[in-house]
């Protein structure tokens, strides 16, 4: 393992077999998603705002095989895993966080409130009616 840059570009068959990263959804409408990977040993999980990984953030280092991301704001995020030595790199995964609109959220809220109050009225009035 030389670690030379051309050998760690995504898509090279040898690396793709050793380090493989995937996300459970490409678009997260509630700000949460799961990243899962296959690796022979400990990994470093990196996140960046661009696929070039010019300034990556390390968000996990360890031996587990997945990580849940949640509470994320709108935007595009790119992920990759590397082995502990940093010589091997996986494929790059893109996840877009795109929350529902507030208009949609409050529409559902109002609908739910209507059903709830109507059910309360049904039970309340029905319980008071003499059979």
């Amino acid at each position, binding site marked *: 393992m030389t670690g030379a840059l051309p050998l760690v570009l995504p898509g090279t068959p040898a690396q793709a077999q050793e380090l493989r990263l995937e996300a459970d959804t490409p678009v997260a*409408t*509630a700000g949460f998603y*799961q990243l899962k990977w296959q690796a022979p040993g400990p990994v470093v999980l990196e996140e960046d705002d661009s696929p070039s990984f010019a300034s990556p953030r390390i968000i996990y280092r*360890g031996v587990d095989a997945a990580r849940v991301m949640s*509470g994320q704001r709108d935007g595009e995020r790119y992920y990759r895993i590397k082995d502990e030595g940093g010589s091997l790199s996986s494929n790059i995964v893109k996840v877009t966080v795109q929350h529902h609109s507030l208009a949609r959220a409050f529409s559902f809220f109002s609908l739910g409130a209507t059903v709830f109050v109507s059910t309360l009225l049904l039970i309340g009035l029905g319980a008071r009616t003499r059979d």
Partner: protein
Amino acid sequence: MDLVNTAILSPSIGWTILAAFSVLWVALGWYWGRHSDELDDYVLAGRRVGLALGTATAMATWVTSNTTMAAPQIALQMGIWGMLGYSLGAVGLFMFAPLASRIRRLMPSGYTSGDFIRLRYGVFAWRVFLLISLFYSLGWLVSMGMAGGILIHALTGIPYHYGMTVILAICVGYTLLGGFRAVIGTDFIQAILILSGVVVIAILAITQVGVDRIHEAVSRERPELLNLLMPASIMFLFNNLLFGVGEIFHSNVWWSRAFSFRRGVGFRAYTLAGLLWAPIPIVAGFIALAVPALDLNVPAADMVGPMIAAEILGTVGAVLVLIMVFSALSSSLDSLLAATSILVVEDVYRRHLRPQASAADMRRAAARIIVGLGVLTWLLCAPRLTTLAELLYFTGAFVASTIWPVAAGLFWKRANAAGAVTGMILGSVVGIISYWTIGFYVAALVGAAVSMACVLAASLLAPARFEWTTLAERHPATSGGPA
């Protein structure tokens, strides 16, 4: 695939705890069930359950593995509103209180929720309802079997399939031995263990980690969890409330309790149970927000509860969590096994296959069905297809579609069969479409809304004139319980 390679307890400790509690539950099951020879004793504890046991069993049954594991999952995914929204599941218990009272009065010899739907709306509505109810029961059983496997794997590293198998085998075993008396008796003990465990863990989470530290870390790493205008969590609020209402209104788990309580106990038992239950998911959910502060990696969202507790409390805490969640699982699995077996025995076995079955035949059939349900659950748990919350909320569209058919059926003479049937079918279909196209956090809400519209429209256009005395059917296989 096993995702955790850093479990806090050793497999040998895990197996020891499981073995000790398994012996305890099975022994209690045998002890309490040794006089349950009559059908009413085996399936409804003789219809004489008092307030203390009644409250404990209602609360303990509603504190499922989902409360202790899915509630933290929802908090991790949906944040503050997710945590508070989960506690709205208590509303279902409060709202069922007047229903429990009415059910006991209108159906003194009733056995199942299926009996009610059959008498109220006829055979076709009854079959649609049975499909929904059995589907939901199976989904709930699978969620709990999965939770057992996930919990044990998260805390001890024992492979998922082993833990899941042990949990299911033990619960089937003591439910089989003791019937409904064993279910209610063990519920009381399990309720005490659950409440104690949750209080201890919450206090330690606040004192050891600190609210300020939790807040700072979440704001930095997962900011939307603190956003009170996070759209998905706003949509989740009434979805979870209506899901809980639907679960309780239709499920034979709760109807069987209503039939088993002494007269006058149901209303108070359900109200008290709701009050006792409501804080538990808030406490359980809160600890999930400590994930960023502890720099803990959570591989799957439904593992966050036990992982956080173990991280905060160390080995002792992990043992405490294992005992507490094992109790929660057991208290719900046994109730669900018992209630589902009653439903299948009464509504499928006797009503469809053997109308002349005696009480002894039905008691034997109940036992076989419990075993069969355990095996089927195991087969469905084995592939671990999804997370706990997503599985649970998949059933939401179906159960929420039964809210108005059940409630209107009990309180509104005009509610007719056409409205009930179209409500259940259309509510389920549209709810499931919304599950896939929008998210799991709207399926129950949509199902309930569509169902309500169908019941109202049909019943206003062609009102029925139902006679409530029709519901007081005497059961031919027994001498009938006290009126």
